[in-house]
């Protein structure tokens, strides 16, 4: 048994609180009905953000992961929650983007008349459910508990896609549900094999017992396959564009920015926390290859889209490809793997904030102009200056131009690929940047050219500023100090620390 | 040597099995669905009754025997009414 018999470290209860706030919010909103669901969610966001920051502070201060065994029962039998560096960073990012999405959608899903309305109750409950599911995914340490969190995430995200009830959104939601269910059932099969082989599902305990046997390889392949389906990596990306493009703006910001990152985060947990002992050379190369293919295919398809939201959704497919370059670039315990690790996490954060900002501004644009056909956006930039400034700055981060977070992520990736001698990965990174420039150019040319555009309604100032604040965070990430990169290293195995 | 009770159990369960087989043969051989339904409903209920009867002496205590009888009663109730519902649907379908 590990030396870690203690059932909690100081501040451990914060992890439980981080989960209970949204869960309590769901139960309260469902009981009190749709009229108060909005106020409950908006009321909870500051507290949730405060708890996320407190966890990050606690992890930073102690320099070790924060641990909490639920029910006082240490892992093999009980379930444990563990927040290390990357969990804390993702919790803070989730809190920020969800608060922004909640305040953005405050008016659209406000409880208008005295009767409870369908879309209001659904939106607010599902938004809190996404928050709860993501929190558990980031701090969970038991593979079956993470399966239930993945299901929670699926049940929260699918109805959001078809909230306005048009047939194509229902078809998109159905495809999304089928892909997600296939993903989680494949994940569950892998979990069953792990339990059959080692009798525990706790990540650190499993990491100590794992050997490269065929059973472990099959289980790892099944879990990775399931998670790739849920992360919409290249061959399995068919469900993402229609789903993210048809959801309401606030929902697609959360879907593209955070929900897709949840299953990617579990892939990181699997290959870097459960299986560091295994020789993962070929697997890392395969994932990197799929990632590069996704970068290129996503970029090319984004170039050909007629609607702005579909273009941004395909850009998500492309940017997800970048995330999977972390596997070859951060593998092992070399000097350059720390650079690869920081690059990957920076890319996750930069893309989350930039993509959320772009979807929110696309929402403002769609409401103001009434449609989102790119060709018909002639001269829109003069009428909606702040919105298009946000889209342009978001594009800056996607392309990887300084001073954005996207630039520092891609720059670190290039550094890692050169330092590790795997220069091959620099090709997709650079081509991806070019393709991103291509589809950003396609958006901005008609908008910046002069011409008259008919406006249906005046844009709401507060929605534009929320999107602008998010994109400024994405740019500010480019100036992240070294302390930020050390923070991400906390609790990472092979970083000179046993994964207690 | 087999006690009288065991003999009784074997005989009852054997008869039950025979009625199940008869019901299945009826299902396969009879021309249309109404007659098949008839065969199934009658034979299986009786077959289950006999099997339950055969198992009662082997049940460990009174409660076990009561449970067996309750199971049989429930199956007869639900089997009978389901057969009636299917029969009505079949007849309505043919009209």
């Amino acid at each position, binding site marked *: 048994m590990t030396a870690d018999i203690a*059932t909690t470290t100081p501040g451990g209860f914060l992890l*439980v609180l981080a989960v*209970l706030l949204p*869960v309590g919010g*769901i*139960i309260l909103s*469902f*009981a009190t*009905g749709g009229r108060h669901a909005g106020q409950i969610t908006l009321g909870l966001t500051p507290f949730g953000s405060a708890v996320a920051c407190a966890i990050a502070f606690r992890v930073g201060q102690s320099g070790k992961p924060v641990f*909490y*065994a*639920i*029910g*006082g*029962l240490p892992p*093999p*039998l*009980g*379930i444990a929650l563990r927040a290390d560096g990357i969990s804390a960073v993702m919790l803070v990012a989730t809190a920020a983007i969800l608060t922004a999405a909640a305040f953005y959608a405050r008016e659209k899903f406000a409880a208008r008349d005295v*009767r*409870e*309305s*369908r*879309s209001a*109750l*659904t939106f607010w*409950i*599902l938004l809190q*459910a996404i928050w709860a599911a993501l929190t558990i995914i980031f701090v969970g340490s038991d593979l*079956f*508990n993470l399966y*239930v969190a993945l*299901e*929670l995430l699926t*049940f*929260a995200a699918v*109805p959001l896609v*078809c*909230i306005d*009830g048009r047939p194509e959104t*229902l078809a998109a939601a159905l495809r999304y549900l089928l892909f997600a269910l296939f993903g989680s059932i494949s994940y569950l*099969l892998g979990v069953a*094999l792990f339990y*059959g*082989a*080692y*009798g*525990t599902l706790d990540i650190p305990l499993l990491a100590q017992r794992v050997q490269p046997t*065929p*059973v472990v390889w*099959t289980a790892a392949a099944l879990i990775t396959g399931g998670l790739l389906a849920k992360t919409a990596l290249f061959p399995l990306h068919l469900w993402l564009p229609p789903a993210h493009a048809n959801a309401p703006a606030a929902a697609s910001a959360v879907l593209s920015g955070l929900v897709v990152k949840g299953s990617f985060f579990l892939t990181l947990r699997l290959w870097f926390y459960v299986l560091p002992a295994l020789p993962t050379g070929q697997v890392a190369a395969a994932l990197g290859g799929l990632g590069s293919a996704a970068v290129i295919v996503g970029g090319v398809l984004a170039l050909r889209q007629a609607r702005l939201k579909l273009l941004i959704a395909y850009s998500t497919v492309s940017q997800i490809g970048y995330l999977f370059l972390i596997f070859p670039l951060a593998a092992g315990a070399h000097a350059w793997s720390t650079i690869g690790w920081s690059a990957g996490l920076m890319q996750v954060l930069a893309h989350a904030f930039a993509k959320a900002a772009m979807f929110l501004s696309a929402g403002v644009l769609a409401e103001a102009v009434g449609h989102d056909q790119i060709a018909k956006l002639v001269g829109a930039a003069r009428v909606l200056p702040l919105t298009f400034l946000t889209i342009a700055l978001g594009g800056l981060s996607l392309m990887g131009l300084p001073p954005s977070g996207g630039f520092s992520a891609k720059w670190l990736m290039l550094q890692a690929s050169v330092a590790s001698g795997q220069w091959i990965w620099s090709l997709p990174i650079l081509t991806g940047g070019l393709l991103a420039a291509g589809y950003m150019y396609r958006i901005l040319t008609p908008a910046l050219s002069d011409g008259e555009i008919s406006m249906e309604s005046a844009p709401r100032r507060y929605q534009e500023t929320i999107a602008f604040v998010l994109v400024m965070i994405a740019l500010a990430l480019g100036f992240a100090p070294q302390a930020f990169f050390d923070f991400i290293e906390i609790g990472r195995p092979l970083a000179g620390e046993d994964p207690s | 040597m087999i006690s009288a009770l065991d003999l009784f159990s074997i005989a009852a369960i054997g008869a039950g099995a025979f009625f199940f087989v008869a019901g299945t043969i009826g299902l396969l051989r009879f021309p249309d669905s109404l007659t098949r339904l008839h065969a199934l409903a009658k034979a299986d209920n009786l077959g289950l009754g006999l099997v339950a009867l055969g198992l009662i002496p082997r049940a460990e205590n009174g409660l076990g025997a009561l449970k067996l009888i*309750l199971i049989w009663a*429930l199956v007869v*109730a*639900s089997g009978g*009414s*389901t057969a*009636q*519902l299917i029969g*009505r649907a079949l007849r309505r379908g043919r009209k």
Partner: protein
Amino acid sequence: MSVLPFIDVGLAFLVVTVACSTIITRDLFAAVVSYVAYGLLLAFVWIRLHAPDVALTEAAVGGGVTGVLLITAGKRLAAIKKAAPEAHPTTTLKLLTGALAALLACALAAAILMLPDVPPSLAPEAAAAASGPGAGLGNPITAVLISYRSFDTMLEKVVLILAVVGVWSVGADKAWGNPPAPLGRPGPYPAMVFLAQVLVPIGALIGIHVFWVGADAPGGAFQGGALLAAMWMVAMMARLGEPPRIDARWLRLALIAGPAVFLIIGLAGISIAGSFFAYPPGFAKPIILFIETFMVLSIAVALPMLVAGPPSEGNRP
């Protein structure tokens, strides 16, 4: 040569054949009916695996409630005759997928056969922990569900609430607040009404018994709740009871009763027993039964609401 393997081999053969018929048959409704038969057969396989609790859940939820859900959907969708014939996959695609599926099945079977001979198990820890906070529970599965892995079970109740919200959100805006469409025919057959009048009281009694005995013998909140849910659905199918309005206050409170009570007791556990979801030693059994009562209520209300579907704009304004 005991007769046991024949039963197992026969059962395994039967299950795989019925599963094949579910996949192979052309007609949609026939596939759904064979799936329901498959679900009930599976309960026998669980008995052979010494898992009576799971057999109860599989029969009640996997075979029964899912069966009603799929049959009602199959009946409505089977009516699409005019739809353009779906693009039937070409034989090459079939062969390819068949080969891929066979490959996966063999790899999985090989992995299962290669599981270590001395199987690691948490049974000893579970037994040891039985002397701890989860004391006094004869049924180890209920102890695992409510005491050791209570976080999973509470989350799973929240998943049920989200599923209900998701199913309701699919309805039309103007229909919000109306009850879902009735499950049974407008003029229910007398045989159905008779069956409901006979079955529902006995079934409800059995459901409560299964829940109550669950602390020490196979059974528990899930199985009891599923049985009670089935009985309410039988009553609704015989039009003895109508699905409630979805904004009915009691319905909302019943749906959240399980997770809410679980959460409150979990939070209380911090001050009383030192950790979230910890139970004071000695009081574990009464507290667990108290939590399970509300869980039974939540499950018994949630499953029929999921089967009844979204609010319908049909009957009442």
